[in-house]
């Protein structure tokens, strides 16, 4: 596809998602109490979207991922939260 075709197909959808992210950050700022590693990871990952380097989706997914390589001793539960909390 040409860039114009991509913009015609996806610009409004991407704009909508960008506004949603902005509103999410506003919501977090309005709220009270401490945040946690998820918001820190979110802000750090947002910064990686600047510039014209390719593979941004891959970069974002890697930024939220557990980078360690050894199995953990025991599963702490079943769920995942979307961001790696770091070593505890």
């Amino acid at each position: 596809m040409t860039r114009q075709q991509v913009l015609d197909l996806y610009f409004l959808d991407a704009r909508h998602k960008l506004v949603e992210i902005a509103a999410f950050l506003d919501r977090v700022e309005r709220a009270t109490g401490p945040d946690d590693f998820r918001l820190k990871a979110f802000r750090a990952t947002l910064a990686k979207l600047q510039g014209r380097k390719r593979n941004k989706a891959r970069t974002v997914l890697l930024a939220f991922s557990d980078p360690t390589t050894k199995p953990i001793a025991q599963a702490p539960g079943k769920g995942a939260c979307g961001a790696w909390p770091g070593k505890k």
Partner: protein
Amino acid sequence: MRYIEPHAHMVSRVTDDYERMALAGCEAVCEPAFWAGFDRSSAAGFFDYFCQLTEHEPKRAAKFGLKHFCWLCINSKEAEEVKLAEEVIALVPQFLDRPNVLGIGEIGLNKNSRNELRVFELQVELAAKYNQLILVHTPHLEDKLKGTRLILDALKSDRRIRPERVVIDHVEEHTVEMVLDAGMWAGMTLYPETKCTPARAVDILETYGRERLWLNSACDWGVSDPLAVPKTALEMKRRGHLAAAIEKVVYGNPKKFLSQSVNFKV
């Protein structure tokens, strides 16, 4: 347009979904054994589930002209308790000669624990012993990268496992390349919030090509869409992909992989 749904948990779906899938062109649905949303308290619960997958669910599908196939295993979310897992694994061989069974799956990892990895290896052993295809679940979100690496390392270290007989499911942009480089098949799961969206799945197809890749809805009891595969075919069409290319991804590719099982016929 005809398509194959290679990963759907129909025991969690209403009968209307079978009808909608059939109307959308689905010819066959394949159902891996998975976590029911709660832990079963004994191996007997899994015995009943395997009966449901091999006896009851094919009849539900047949009412709408759909062929139903399944995969059997204990899933990674219930694999922390190794003794229970061993009891369930011991049940599987008696079901393997049933006519709709495709192989061992969806085995894999969830939180990447030692016990999960141990149970994964036991089930790889089972697949090797009975010469079964393997369908692998990779972990969610922040655990996916590490889990995919651990899974690939375990599979590659077993010389009996032929990579072309393994599909690694739920790949995303950060894991698809390592799976394809290992010679295995890669499944892209289309979820509204996690895993791939239709647009991202088509991005991956445009980046990595159409070989050894398939699409699935993995529809279950959670937020999911049983029509995600035909919707992604529509996304390909919107981008100008030709009908033959679309059919290869949604029908030809799953048919090619699954036909390695003598039980798979469409």
